[in-house]
Structure formats: C-alpha cells, structure tokens
C-alpha cells in the first residue's frame, strides 16, 4: 500500500501534471473572479470565502479523472485488483494520493489567494482549517465518482455531473465555516458537521468505490 502511494506521488510529480495544474486552475479561477464580478472590495470581501471554497472544489473536481483512468487504460488497475491488497485499500490510497497532490496544496495556497479577494482578516485561519478538514472528503467522494466512470471514454464531464451533487453537503458546511469565521460568528456546529462528513465518507465510501471498480473491471 505504501508502495502504491509512493508510486502515485512519483507519477503525479513526474508526469508534470497532477501536481501543479490543479493549483494553477485554482489560481486562475480566483484571479478571474474579480474580472467577472468587478474589482471593488465591497463586492469581493463578502464573497471571498465562498469563492475560494468554490474554486478549490472545482479544481479538485477537474483533477478527479486522473485518479483511476490512467491505471485503467494501461491495464495496471486489473493488476492491482489481483494483487494481494484489498481493493478498498487501493481506493483509499488513491484518494489519499489525490488529496496530497491536490487538496493539500490548495489548502496551503488558499490564504495567499484570500489576499487577492480581500478576505477579511479573521477569516484566514478558519478558511485554512475548513479546507484542511473538508478537502479529504472531496477526494474520497471524487474517487467514488472516478470509480463509477472509469470504464467510459471521456467520462470527465459525466464525472463532474455525478460528483457535484455529492459535494453539496461538504461545500455548504465548509463554506459556512469559512464565512462565519470571516465574520467572526460562532462556527462550532458547522465545523463539527464538516468533520463528521469527512470521517463518515472516509470510513464508508471506499467500499462503494471498490465495488464500482470491481464492476467496471468485469
């Protein structure tokens, strides 16, 4: 399993894609927002936390199809399915590798981009925290979506369609935490719920992902 994680990380760094591109997309979405909604801070400030969460979610989304598709195409997924590790473990490791190369950099970059959108001062801490807690759920849910669509040609957009409604609860609680944080409001409840969602998806969804992979390999 550690070998698999190492390999996936090496691949995403060496293929010159996985790692930098999600981050770049995040940067670009955030940069384009002022062009789209207008530059004045009165407009930007209140939506900053939300746009950052939305941008993180979208960049996460766009890198999902790399989680399994490459391994499926070159036959490595079949070999992993017959290897002496459970497919649930493979699904978990894949999600973890995705988080390490996408969710984690996004979380670390978010404060810097918050400056661009005039995020209010107290919001930075909570934005980072909410992303740190919420993005693992995004990766796990995304792995499930990728597992469902792995057999399809150009399943990319279909994958987005399937995954986005599943992202709704995470997005709501995550953005709520960041928003309340920025306004200095109490945020224990949404924070607890966000953590709960992440833990529950981590515990349960790998089974569904493994089942979907098995069905797709058949």
């Amino acid at each position, binding site marked *: 399993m550690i070998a698999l994680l190492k390999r996936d990380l090496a691949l995403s760094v*060496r293929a010159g894609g996985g790692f930098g591109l999600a981050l770049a997309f995040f940067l670009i979405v955030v940069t384009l927002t002022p062009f789209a909604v207008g530059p004045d801070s009165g407009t930007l400030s209140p939506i900053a936390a939300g746009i950052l969460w939305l941008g993180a979610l979208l960049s996460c989304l766009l890198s999902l199809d790399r989680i399994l598709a490459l391994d499926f195409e*070159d036959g490595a997924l079949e070999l992993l399915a*017959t290897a002496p590790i459970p497919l649930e473990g493979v699904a978990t490791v894949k999600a973890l590798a995705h988080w390490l190369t996408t969710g984690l950099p996004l979380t670390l970059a978010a404060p810097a981009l918050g400056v661009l959108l005039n995020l209010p001062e107290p919001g930075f801490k909570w934005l980072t925290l909410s992303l740190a807690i919420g993005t693992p759920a995004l990766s796990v849910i995304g792995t499930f979506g990728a597992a469902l669509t792995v057999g399809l040609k150009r399943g990319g957009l279909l994958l987005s369609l399937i995954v986005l409604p599943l992202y709704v609860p995470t997005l709501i609680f995550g953005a709520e935490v960041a928003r309340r944080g920025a306004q200095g409001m109490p945020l224990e409840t949404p924070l607890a719920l966000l953590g709960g969602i992440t833990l529950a998806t981590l515990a349960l969804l790998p089974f569904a992902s493994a089942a979907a992979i098995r069905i797709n390999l058949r």
Partner: protein
Amino acid sequence: MEMNVTDLACTRGGMRVLEGVSFDVPSGRALVLRGPNGIGKTTLLRTLAGLQPADAGSVTPGPEAIAYASHADGNKAVLTVAENLTFWARLHGTSDIRPALRDFNLEALETRPAGSLSAGQKRRLGLARMAVTGRPIWLFDEPTVSLDTDSVALFAAAVDRHLGAGGSAIVATHIDLGLEGETLELAPFRAEAPEDHHDAFHEAFL
C-alpha cells in the same frame, strides 16, 4: 502448484462465450490454450484470474495463487524499468528484482523510462513482472506479441525454470513455444446459442 478447473462457464459482454471447460494442470506442467480469434481465450483467462465471476463451475486455487499477464502491460511510461518492477515486487511482498531483470535481458535498460522502450522491450518488462509476483500459477495472454525470436526463447526459458521449480502456467498463444505440457483446443467448448427455455428463470429474457 496444481490447478483444477471443473465445468467452467464464462460470459463476456452479457453473452455466454464458453461452457463446460474442465482441465487439470499438475504442478511443473504448462497448459497451452488454442482457438480462433474471438473464441474466448481472454475471457477464460480473466475468469481464472478472478477478474470476472464464473457463470458456473469451479476453479481451485483462487486468485491469490495466480499471476496474470494480459494484453496490456500496466507499466508507467514516466517511471524507469527498475522503478516499475520494484513497485510490483513491493506490492507482492517480494523485494529482489535482479533475477527478473536478468532473465528478461533488461539489465542494460534498467534506468530507461518505460515510455522510451520499443514495443518488444515493453513486452519483456511486462513479462518480467510475473517473476517478481512470487506466485505459483502464471497465466499469459498472447505473451509473444511483438517479441523477436531471441526474446521468445528468453520467455520460454523463464517459464521452463518456473515449471522446474514446481510452478505451473497457462498460456494462450498461436505459436509453438515448446513447453512441457498439454494443449487445450477451446473450439469444442464454445457456448451454444441458447434455446428458448420457457421454464428457465432468466433465459426467458436473455
């Protein structure tokens, strides 16, 4: 290790392809599968490897004793030959990739990224993977595609050595490899187009 297959039936794309396949492969022996294109060799091997459920019949031992080499090699273009092999070795809990590199004449290529290999070299790397799994039963689906004669000889020698150590192998191929063991022609096991069994539960439909 011995392999027993009894009365196996396989389905592909929703259609029954093979029926009533039975054979034994004693340890130290190989079985060569033959049959025209589309008869179901790949389907049978995938079923044996546990990638798809059998419609009927039994296979012993289960997938955990079996290593399967399909048409695709599953190696990563940006990783080097040694990195690819090491990955598979660690995944299967073994560690020494030297013998596999030597057996398939990959030592000179060890540090080349797999993507820069020629087709035959890629194939050799795919076959070398089998040696590092450490599993007793090897399944090959047309292993000699794009190999030149020298490499075919390397492959046959590697399988022979595996058989000599008490392993067994099933090879679907169109050419003669000179392996110890029998040949199974699959054409007789082709599934009949099902009659309309009005009593049967699902047949009524499919």
